[in-house]
């Protein structure tokens, strides 16, 4: 089956006063149809930039694409301006991080959803400017049905409310409903639960996963929360400082991570019975990233080769790591002892 999204060796930077910030450097990512992929990384690793690149919403004039490509459902999102605009909002939709800032406070929720449906409804004919009453009625029914699907009570009344009358969890449910309404093939959810409490997070993740699986929509779920990644995804991609570090199916990622960075990240989680270790040092500045593997200044396994040569993604089957000295299962027992 062809991948819905392919990011290949993407390198891009931003022009800044201090020179070129190399935010992404050799990123690889694939999402298959109907699959939920977590993109895990710490703040500043380029998750959100990658999401913008996939959506084709990089700031024009500031972003410099070095090499690589982003192919979404056959369209080249980096170079084709108009084609990217057609795909965005229809084939790919977006769930933002902050449900509080994503609605216009001056308009009722229903108005804002119907605005979306006017242009991005699957029932709209290509190029049509006319919003027929018949299509409006059909769209409204679809909206009500979708609000019920995301478990918002009394949808008709809810549409009459202003954003400030809704709680954070309700707004994020609305965002998910709005992302699903154009019947996309891929949803990019950028840290959708960071602003929410754990009980609400559990509800939201449940809704997102259930609906995505039911409707066969692929989800790219960026997060820095490994727990949330465990909850929702089928596969994990880890980024560090703009490079892809590891790509693996969920189970083998959490039980047998190959990349030293991933291992340290998992050990940083607070857990019963041991103190979390953390990772010494800090994330390098994209203005002057280390050569070779960008993790080498903080890596316990680094040697001369890591400083000179950038590792490529390799590994067996589905589980790939970009490391010259990956931790493989055979060595694991020895290391932990």
């Amino acid at each position, binding site marked *: 089956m062809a991948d819905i999204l392919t990011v290949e060796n993407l390198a891009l930077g931003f022009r800044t006063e201090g020179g070129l910030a190399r935010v992404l450097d050799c990123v690889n990512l694939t999402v298959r149809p109907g699959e939920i992929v977590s993109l895990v990384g*710490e703040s500043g690793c380029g998750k959100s930039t990658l999401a913008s690149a996939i959506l084709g919403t990089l700031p024009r004039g500031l972003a410099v694409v070095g090499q690589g490509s982003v192919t979404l459902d056959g369209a080249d999102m980096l170079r084709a301006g108009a084609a990217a605009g057609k795909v965005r909002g229809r084939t790919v939709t977006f769930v933002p991080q902050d449900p509080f800032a994503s609605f216009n406070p001056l308009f009722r929720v229903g108005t804002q959803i119907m605005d979306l449906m006017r242009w991005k409804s699957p029932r709209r004919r290509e190029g049509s400017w006319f919003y027929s009453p018949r299509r409006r009625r059909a769209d409204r029914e679809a909206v009500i049905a979708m609000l019920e699907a995301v478990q918002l009570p009394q949808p008709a009344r809810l549409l009459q409310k202003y954003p400030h009358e809704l709680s954070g969890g309700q707004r994020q449910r609305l965002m998910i409903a709005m992302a699903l309404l154009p019947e996309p093939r891929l949803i990019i959810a950028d840290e959708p639960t960071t602003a929410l409490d754990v009980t609400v997070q559990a509800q939201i993740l449940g809704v997102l*996963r259930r609906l995505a699986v039911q409707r066969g929509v692929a989800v790219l779920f960026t997060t820095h929360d490994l727990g949330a990644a465990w909850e929702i995804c089928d596969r994990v991609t880890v980024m560090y400082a703009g490079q892809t570090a590891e790509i693996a199916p969920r189970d083998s990622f*959490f039980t047998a991570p190959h990349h030293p960075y991933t291992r340290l990240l998992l050990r*940083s989680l*607070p857990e019963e019975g041991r103190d979390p270790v953390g990772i010494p040092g800090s994330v390098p500045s994209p203005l002057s990233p280390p050569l070779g593997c960008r993790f080498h200044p903080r890596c316990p396994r680094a040697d001369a080769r890591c400083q000179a040569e950038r590792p490529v993604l390799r590994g067996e089957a589905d589980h790939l790591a970009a490391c010259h000295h990956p931790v493989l299962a055979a060595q694991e027992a020895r290391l932990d002892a």
Partner: protein
Amino acid sequence: MPDRPLLELQGLKRHFPVRGLFNRRVGTLRALDGVDLAVAPGEVLGIVGESGCGKSTLGKTIMGIHAPSDGAVLFDGAQVAGGGVRRPDGLRAQLQYVYQDPGASLDPSWTLRRSLHEPLVIHTKLRRAEREARIQEIVAAVGLPAAHLDLYPHEISGGQQRRVGLARILVLGPKLVILDEPTSGLDVSVQAAVLALFRELRQAFGLTYLFISHDLAVVRSMCHRVAVMYLGRVVEIGPVAEIFARPRHPYTQALLSAAPRIGGPRVTENFALQGEPPDPSQMPEGCRFSVRCRWAAPQCKVEPALEDGVACWRWRELAAGLVPAAAE
């Protein structure tokens, strides 16, 4: 453990008026509604709950930022707030509050040395040389090179700013430190380092922490005891190991079951708790949790008191497995 708690809260209440048209009082937001707590010296007490449950109001009321509407705060046996008591002057030095990002409290146009001198100038009569010696000692304890003292905040990293912010709090030798969401918004690798620092400092300075957080995993790794708050009241309190192993209050059970556990089953697939906490200005009658509780019964129309560390009428029946889950 000595008998006298370092901090004691007795029926602490903090209500905020809700104003309507023409500034008329139209309701009351009961942010804290009768909290009883005691913190022993050297203990780390965690306060957990969802946003809006009154965790931060609790910290701020203890700190004296809000005056209690009713009830009392006792520090080291003496009443320091509530009932018309004036705050003793020396209290500020013994009770310190750490905000989410302690580094952000540094003045950008002051050198770190000046920022560190300031609390000592205000609270003590030490001479300059004595203050300097004190600062050197603290700075070494938080792991900051002494050469950094002449730098400005923007010249050091965020992690170091955090250390300076903590040094500024510790330089007065506080007894109780209130940590308000100290790790929210941090990456796990940084969070681990920050937690380790808090642990070290507690040992080195014999501190007592009130650790306010919404992150259950952090509380579990950090605290001795934990108090679970729901809509302005403590619904369950006890040793961390016990609460996490055998939560008794239905709300605690729901809260714990919502936290993702790596390696465990996906909690999202059968997460039972519906909805969000009601608006604290329109409190439900009786047990506050009854409107979301699966096991709510007629007796829950009356507010249960905190007994044996749990505020629920039915926990004994539930623990014994006598109650079949109500139809969901």
